[in-house]
């Protein structure tokens, strides 16, 4: 209460000063005054009221009509005051929710943690950034004992918490598969059964599974309706789409997945991604897949991890630092 009275005096002094000098200093202080008032939870209609009282003090002979006009203004501000108070409450709840989700996101991070394998002759860059706090994209590296590297990349249709819950299931299932079954087509066929059985029919998962054999330099892969990646042919300096057809996970129980293969030569790159990369939006405009390639080309001289980071930075900025979808980008390059 006493602070409020003090503020009235402050306001009156500032107002008087401004009427006298009309200079910027007083207006700057007016701004500081209102920020200070907001920190003390003063509603806009109270500012109007303070203004009215100051005017009555400063101009004792204020005409009745001017006075009435100010009362009218005060009346219109009450609803704004309510919005302002609601704002404060929402803001607090938002912070609460935020910290709750960040705990959940951390649990998810721990759950989905994957170790990027350090392999001689093979450079790997991987980055996955959720649009909201929880990630509905999934990627995972599996090292088997016979010198093969398994790479999973998946996207739950949907974002946030529901997608994260679904993702955990994929993770639990992947963990339960025996290691020798990590053949791309088999992995997708098994996962498809799990998703189909356990998840709401409205929820789908797209997934790409690749297996890189480091002895033969062969890349085997299958796709369950996943956004096609790119293949960089170093000898010809050309980029190609990695075509692979297959139904998304969770639609039909006994889906079979075709398995493809590709020889990887020195300097070649395999680029895997989710549609959060290719469907970046700039304002109302969707970017073209070509533009993603352009940016990758721009940074192709860097190390794989640096490429994925620079590409992310580019699209983060393009989207005004607000991702519309989870963003996952993986780049493999055979060096030797």
């Amino acid at each position, binding site marked *: *209460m006493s602070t409020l009275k003090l503020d009235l005096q402050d306001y009156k002094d500032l107002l008087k000063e401004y009427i006298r000098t009309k200079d910027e200093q007083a207006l700057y202080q007016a701004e500081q005054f209102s920020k200070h008032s907001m920190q003390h939870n003063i509603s806009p*209609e*109270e500012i109007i*009221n303070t203004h*009215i009282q100051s005017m009555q003090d400063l101009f004792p002979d204020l005409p009745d009509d001017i006075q009435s006009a100010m*009362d009218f203004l*005060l*009346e219109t501000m*009450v*609803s*704004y*005051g*309510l*919005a*302002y*108070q*609601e*704002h404060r*409450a*929402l803001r607090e*709840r938002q912070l609460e929710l935020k910290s709750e989700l960040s705990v959940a996101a951390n649990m998810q991070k721990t759950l989905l943690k994957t170790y990027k394998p350090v392999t001689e002759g093979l450079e790997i860059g991987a980055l996955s950034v959720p649009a909201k706090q929880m990630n509905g994209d999934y990627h995972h590296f599996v090292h088997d004992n016979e010198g093969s590297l398994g790479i999973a990349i998946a996207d739950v249709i949907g974002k946030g918490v529901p997608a994260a819950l679904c993702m955990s299931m994929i993770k639990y299932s992947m963990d339960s598969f025996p290691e020798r079954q990590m053949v791309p087509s088999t992995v997708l066929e098994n996962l498809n059964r799990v998703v189909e059985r356990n998840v709401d029919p409205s929820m789908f998962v797209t997934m790409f599974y690749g297996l890189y054999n480091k002895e033969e330099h062969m890349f085997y892969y299958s796709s369950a309706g996943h956004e096609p990646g790119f293949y960089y042919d170093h000898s010809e300096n050309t980029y190609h789409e990695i075509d692979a057809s297959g139904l998304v996970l969770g639609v039909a129980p006994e889906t079979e997945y075709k398995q493809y293969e590709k020889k990887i030569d020195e300097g070649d790159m395999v680029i895997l991604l989710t549609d959060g990369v290719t469907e970046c939006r700039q304002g109302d405009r969707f970017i073209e897949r070509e533009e993603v390639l352009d940016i990758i080309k721009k940074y192709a001289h860097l190390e794989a991890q640096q490429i994925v980071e620079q590409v992310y930075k580019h699209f983060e900025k393009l989207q005004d630092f607000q991702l519309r979808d989870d963003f996952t980008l993986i780049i493999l390059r055979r060096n030797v």
Partner: protein
Amino acid sequence: MDFQSCVNIKKEWDIVGARQLGRDIAKKIGFGTVDQARIATAISELARNIYLYAGNGKVCFEAIDDLNRRGLSIAAIDSGPGIEEISMAMEDGYTTSGGLGAGLPGVKRLMDEFDIISEPGKGTEIRVVKWLR
């Protein structure tokens, strides 16, 4: 002034009548301009709820005395459909009126005390109090 005065709410015009009576009593009790405006806004909200969702009801006013303070008590009573999920109606940001910041949470913010009894099919009774500071 311990006397209870009521305004029946049947048409939109009655909202203005309720505001007028509420403001007069508030003025007599000694509420300042801001509080008068807030009380009027709360009355609008309560009366409009009756008008829109119950079709028929009343808003009653009473000057009240505590041990060492005075205040205005307002009761909005209807025999309309009632509120199915009170906790939802009391949540911020989900007013049916579509406006920002209003609804029952708004009324609660504008006043000092807020009490609601509602039975689906039977009606709703909302009692609010504003204390003179």
